[in-house]
Structure formats: C-alpha cells, structure tokens
C-alpha cells in the first residue's frame, strides 16, 4: 500500500474509489466519477498556475528592464494577479455591432479549452497520468489545430476587417510553424518507438535533448512561435496591425485570450520537458512518484524561464522574417536532419550507448556547423556596405572639380 507521501495522487484516488465502492456505487460509475474529479482538479490547477505565471513574468520582465515590477499589492506584488483578475471580472462585455454571436462568444472559450486539453495526456509521474492515450503525441499536435480554429472564430466573429486580417495572419504564422514542430516531434517517436507519452518518457535513459539537440532546438523555437510569444509576437503587437484578432473583445472574454496565451506558454514548456528533457525521470522517481512530479515541474519551469528570457531580451521579428525563418531554415533543416538521423541511428543502434550518444551528438554538431556556415554566407551576400569609399570616376559632371578624391580634370 503506497504511503501518502510517496504518491499522494494515487493514495487519494484509491481512497476515493474505496469510499465510493463501500457506498455501493457500481464500478463503471466509480470510474466516471474518478475521471470527472481528476479532470476538474487538473484543469483548475492549470488555471491557478497561470495566475502564478502572470506574477512571475511581470516581475522577471521588470527586472530585465531594470525596474521592479509589481510590488505594491501584497508582499513582492504576489497578489497583483489576483487584483488584475478581480478587475477584469467587472469590466463590461462589449459586443460589436453586427458581430456573429456564436463564433464571437465561442472563440475565447475554445482558445482556453484547446490549451487545457493538452494537460489531459501529460504523464506527471510514474503513476499519475490523465488519459492513457496511445497516440498522445499526435493528440498534442491535433489540439493545437483547435486553437487555430478559435483564432479564426475570433477574427470572423468580430465583424471587423482588421480583426479578420489579423486573425488570418496569425493563423498563417501558426500553421507555418506547425510544420517543423511536427517534423522534429518525429525524432522522439523514432527513438522510443511509440506515440505514447509515458513510453517516450520512460525510454529516455539518456535525455533526447542530448541525443538530438538540433531537432530539440527546432521544436522549442517552433513551439515558441506557435504560442505567439516574443520574439514571434507579431500577432499581439499593438504598433503593427491595429490590434489583431482580439481587438473587439473586452472584459473577461479578452482576459481569457490573455490567459490562453500564458497557459499555452507553460503547456509548451511542459511538452518540451516531456519529449526531450526526460519528463518525470530523475533519481528516485520510480520508487517515489512524487519526486517525478517535482522533477517535471522543475524542468518545465526552467524552460518557461528560458521563454521569459527570450521575451525580455530579443527584438520582435517582422512577419516576412518570421515566414522566411520557418520555410527556408527550419523546415529544410528538420527534413534533412530527419533523414540523416534516421540513417545514422540505424547504424548506431546496436552499439554501446556511449558510442551512440557520441555519434548522434557529432552529427548534430556537424549539422549546426553547416547551418551556421550557410546562414552566414547568405548574410554576407545580402549585406552591402553602407558607405562606399569615394572612387574617382570620369563623369561629365565632375570634370571640373577639386574634390580631395582626385577628380581628374
């Protein structure tokens, strides 16, 4: 019998099941109740986590920008997000004239729901998992598609041509970055032989980020672009395009678009930790499942901190730079790396783990160097010196001149 401290969730689950069965509830209903309670707790926990994220992000961005960030409401400004939530609850819900009601109201709900639905298949520890889905990784990508649909609904439902244009532009960016994301998600699947997220986690004796750092980086960058976070945050840049798909929203409906963005950011860090950083794996995680959960949170927290750093330090990309980067750098790179890794791992498969790691690392290093050379040579071709050195040129207008460059008379 597992002790409470080793595995609190399983302990609570068994207690609840025992309780319900002793009340005479039929077994199938016990299952449904257990699932419903679990789902409710998980969804609520995710949304509460967003509140913490709001505080953390504002504090850190403030520090990066050499200012304090919120510090008035509560110690270290910890209650600031709660104050913000209370404020936004009481703002008026303005529906623009001529708006299509159903898409307009459905969009924020769908946006948050799509981000939340990802949490259902993440393995939080060796024994705690929402849905034991054997196509987990594809499910993650599919739910992203629902999020894109939500943006289209928002843009269309607002009855505003700028909102619609902004929505379509955002969706164009999101679907473009889906391509390298899906392609580099193939790499953990290849290494672990399954689409099941728990199997992928358990197969990471060596973290996949070590075996395939370049695909991992592609996946991370593409995910950051998928979420619409800086430096890919053109969709929400006020100075760029009136205001994008959420311009007509006010009150909590707008608040939920904001919540959806933060939720997606953490969700993406969670996914990266599961796919490439070994998920809940760590010393003692099998014996004490609680530790597994702690490890997973630490890893995704680290990735999320990295994303905050990106936001605070990098300038925003232009839309054409964003698209170029995707189609001309990431997609070919992901495709070619997939081919190379597929071939290389076939030969390295049977060798000692050490040899395999070194071999794959070597290939990734080679890919990085080649990419670096290619990109810098393209940059050199494109770069033109701003100021040309003055050269004497025999032209009619400077026959009679006394310039110090030596105009020949």
């Amino acid at each position, binding site marked *: 019998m597992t002790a409470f401290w080793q595995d609190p969730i399983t302990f609570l689950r068994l207690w609840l099941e025992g309780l319900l069965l002793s009340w005479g509830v039929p077994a199938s209903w016990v299952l449904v109740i257990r699932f419903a309670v679990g789902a409710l707790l*998980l969804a609520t926990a995710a949304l509460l986590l967003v509140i913490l994220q709001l505080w953390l992000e504002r504090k850190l961005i403030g520090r990066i920008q050499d200012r304090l960030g919120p510090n008035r409401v509560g110690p270290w400004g910890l209650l600031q997000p709660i104050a913000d939530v209370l404020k936004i*609850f009481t*703002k008026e819900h303005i529906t623009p*004239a001529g708006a299509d009601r159903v898409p307009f*109201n459905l969009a924020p709900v769908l946006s948050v729901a799509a981000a939340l639905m990802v949490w*259902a298949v993440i393995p939080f520890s060796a024994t705690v998992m929402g849905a034991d889905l054997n196509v987990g990784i594809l499910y993650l990508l599919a739910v992203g598609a629902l999020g894109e649909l939500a943006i289209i609904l928002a843009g269309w439902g607002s*009855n505003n041509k700028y909102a619609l244009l902004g929505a379509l*532009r955002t969706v164009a960016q999101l679907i473009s970055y889906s391509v390298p994301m899906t392609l580099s998600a193939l790499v953990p699947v290849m290494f672990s032989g399954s689409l099941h997220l728990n199997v992928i986690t358990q197969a990471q004796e060596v973290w996949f980020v070590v075996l395939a750092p370049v695909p991992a980086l592609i996946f991370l960058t593409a995910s950051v672009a998928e979420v619409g976070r800086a430096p890919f945050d053109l969709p929400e840049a006020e100075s760029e395009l*009136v205001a994008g798909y959420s311009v007509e929203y006010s009150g909590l409906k707008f608040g939920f678009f904001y919540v959806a963005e933060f939720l997606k950011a953490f969700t993406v860090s969670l996914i990266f930790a599961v796919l490439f950083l070994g998920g809940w794996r760590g010393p003692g995680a099998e014996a004490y499942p609680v530790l597994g959960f702690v490890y997973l949170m630490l890893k995704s927290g680290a990735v999320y901190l990295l994303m905050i750093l990106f936001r605070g330090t990098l300038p925003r990309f232009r839309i054409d730079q964003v698209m170029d980067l995707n189609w001309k750098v990431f997609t070919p790179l992901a495709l070619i790396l997939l081919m190379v890794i597929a071939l290389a791992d076939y030969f390295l498969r049977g060798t000692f783990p050490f040899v395999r790691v070194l071999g794959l690392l070597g290939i990734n290093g080679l890919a990085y160097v080649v990419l670096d050379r290619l990109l810098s040579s393209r940059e050199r071709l494109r770069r033109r010196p701003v100021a040309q050195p003055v050269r004497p040129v025999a032209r009619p207008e400077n026959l009679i001149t006394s310039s110090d460059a030596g105009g020949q008379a």
Partner: protein
Amino acid sequence: MGHEMLNAWLYIGLFTLVAAALPAIAIFLAGLLSPRKPNPIKDATYECGVETVGPAWTQLRVQYYLFALAFLIFDVESVLLFPWAVAYQQLPLFAIVEAIIFLAILVGGLFYAWRKGALNWQ
C-alpha cells in the same frame, strides 16, 4: 486495447467538457457582475479611430493560400511518416531508405517552391 483505449478517450471527453465549462462559467459570472451600457458609438467596430467605411470584407493575397497549401502538404507527409517512425526501431535498412526517398521527394518540392518565390511573404 479494448477498454483501456476507450477509458482514455472517456477521460479526454470529460476533460474537454470541464475545460470548456470552466471558462464558459467564468465568463457567465463576469457577465453578471459587469455593467451593461451599450450605445451605438461604443458598439461600433474599431477602425483606427475613424468611422467604419464599407462592409467588413477583406481581399486576401494568394500568398496566404500558398502557405496554407504548403502546410497541408507537409502535414499529410508528417502524418504518413508517424507510423514509420513508430516502427522505426524494428525496420530493416530498406525501409529506412524508402522513408528517405519519401522525404527527399518533398524536400525537392520545397526547394522548387522556394526557387519560384512561392515562399516569400510579399
């Protein structure tokens, strides 16, 4: 298979309901708490601060369509590759070469589109 898979989807179905209900209930509550004072000027759609001119239509450029099409093609390609990737550890070299040919054909397509300028934003 059988029941485990259906149980997993049952959980996902319940989770979807919860995930949709939570924001919906919150928005409903906020609707109760917030004032409601519509007037024609406030309800007018936003257009850089001037009055709205013309119906809300947009003429899209064909570029968007090409990006969506390229995405569709690579999406279908990835979906065909996922079963191969799952079986990868057990496949002979021949199968791996097959997948490489598959990928190479599409890399060729990508480079063709690139050369033709289909991937430029403007």
